[in-house]
């Protein structure tokens, strides 16, 4: 083999030769002192060149996180969460329609019984001061009445078979929920008065002891607004005018008087048919959101709890049926019925429909005390 050229020596030292080529080079160097010397020279040259390049290196800094040119918008926009919410809404509609129509039909049949059951509940959960006005009527032997109603609810009408099953299970849960509520302070119960109104309505026809909600609802229908809103709202990003906000809510949105209004936005929140956010500047660097929401007829909480309850009462196979096949036709039928009933209910809203409960809340980078203080100052926003 002829002598090894510089390029091959460098490639050898850079470990960029194939194994065969490397063996050739090593074989030659082993028997050629001249090339062996050159190999060492080139090795020193490479080391020196690397050293020099090292002198001309940038300061060794930590690798920063990747910064893309156009970062994702930080806000999770409404249309990004729309698909999952659409599924949730379907479930809410399906179950909700069942809850709404089932009990109503039964209520029409037996209004007097409902009244009495509710009174019984009042007696069992409310302090004595609240009870006396109902006390006399509630003694009219509620138990036999419920016993006679039990078969009616379970055997039910054929067309509502699956719906009735749903309802009885929901009622079980509603019972639990309301028991839990009863243990909480009255104000906390008030927050969910609307939810329990729905739950309370369906507890009455089924053969389970009805508890707290009914009496609470009686108070709540007179209370126009309750404080505290559960859950996170998502801004649509589109500002609305005060008039639009008023049309959405059916009343004036709330705001802190004397603070400049930066903007009024429509927002979405599960369990609310309309949510309006009024952004107000507290000072040059702090802004607060005043949220006025109108609660929807149904709340997601009721649906979620309902699903959980089925594990107690339904067989797995049954549950699958209820969850998928059985629920589908029911939901469609329910949606139709709901659509038909909508105008009627809209007219009825002018009366004292409990769905008109308004909820408002102040949010912002402030202490809970400050937020509470601001909340106490809230007034309807007028032009």
């Amino acid at each position, binding site marked *: 083999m002829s002598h090894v050229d510089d390029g091959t020596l460098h490639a050898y030292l850079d470990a960029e030769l194939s194994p065969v080529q490397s063996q050739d080079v090593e074989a030659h160097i082993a028997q050629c002192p001249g090339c062996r010397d050159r190999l060492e020279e080139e090795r020193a040259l490479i080391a020196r060149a690397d050293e020099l390049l090292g*002198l*001309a290196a940038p300061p060794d800094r930590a690798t920063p996180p990747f910064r893309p040119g156009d970062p994702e918008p930080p806000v999770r926009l409404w249309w990004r969460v729309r698909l999952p919410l659409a599924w949730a809404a379907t479930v809410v509609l399906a179950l909700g329609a069942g809850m709404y129509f089932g009990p109503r039909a039964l209520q029409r049949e037996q209004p007097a019984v409902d009244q009495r059951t509710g009174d019984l509940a009042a007696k069992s959960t409310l302090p004595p001061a609240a009870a006396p006005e109902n006390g006399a009527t509630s003694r009219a032997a509620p138990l036999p009445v419920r016993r006679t109603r039990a078969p009616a609810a379970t055997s039910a009408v054929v067309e509502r078979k699956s719906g009735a099953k749903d309802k009885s299970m929901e009622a079980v849960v509603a019972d639990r929920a309301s028991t839990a509520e009863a243990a909480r302070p009255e104000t906390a119960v008030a927050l969910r008065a609307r939810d329990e109104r729905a739950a309370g309505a369906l507890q009455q026809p089924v053969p389970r002891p009805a508890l707290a909600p009914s009496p609470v609802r009686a108070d709540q229908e007179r209370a126009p607004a309750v404080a505290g809103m559960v859950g996170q709202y998502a801004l649509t990003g589109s500002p609305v005018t005060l008039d639009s906000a008023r049309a959405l809510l059916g009343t004036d949105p709330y705001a802190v008087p004397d603070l400049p209004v930066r903007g009024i936005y429509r927002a979405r929140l599960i369990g609310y048919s309309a949510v309006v956010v009024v952004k107000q500047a507290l000072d040059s660097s702090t802004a607060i959101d005043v949220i006025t929401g109108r609660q929807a007829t149904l709340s997601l909480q009721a649906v979620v709890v309902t699903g959980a309850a089925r594990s107690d009462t339904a067989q797995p196979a049954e549950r699958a049926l209820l969850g998928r096949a059985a629920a589908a036709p029911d939901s469609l039928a329910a949606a139709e019925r709901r659509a038909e009933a909508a105008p009627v209910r809209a007219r009825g809203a002018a009366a004292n429909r409990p769905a008109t409960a308004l909820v408002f809340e102040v949010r912002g980078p402030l202490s809970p005390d400050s937020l509470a203080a601001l909340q106490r100052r809230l007034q309807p926003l007028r032009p």
Partner: protein
Amino acid sequence: MPDDLADVYRTTYRALVRFLYRKVWDAERAEDLAQEAFARALVHKPAHARGWLFVVAANMARDDARRAARERRHLTLLKSEPPASAPPSDEALHTEGERSQVRTALEQLTPRDREVLLLWDSGLSYDEIATQTGLARGAIGTTLARARRRLVEAFEAGRTGEHVARG
């Protein structure tokens, strides 16, 4: 960022900054350009991200050098006084002196030799360098041998010249 590009970023970012630094001689600028190259990779999704990044970085550095040269011409007209700042320490001066000597030495290499040397120093293999520069793979060793020798010679020559001038 796709996973593979995230990996490339983790393994190649410093090398790309190093590569760019020897072209623009400004650490901040080199990092900005490296970030920009990765941002472009995110959009273009090249099949061979690593090699692609060095091509893009080399192009950006060239454009940047042209722009910088243009700006320098304007600045020399405007700048009459040196910027008022704390005098650098001896050590810093020494490091800075060596850096500028290496820079001067590098600039005496032919563009092709310099490119191959800088790509190798940035961690690219002979194959990658061949793809990048259009040279035959077998020529990379020879080019590198020449580039290294010239770099060392130019550096030593610069030093000797400095000593002679001082002496």
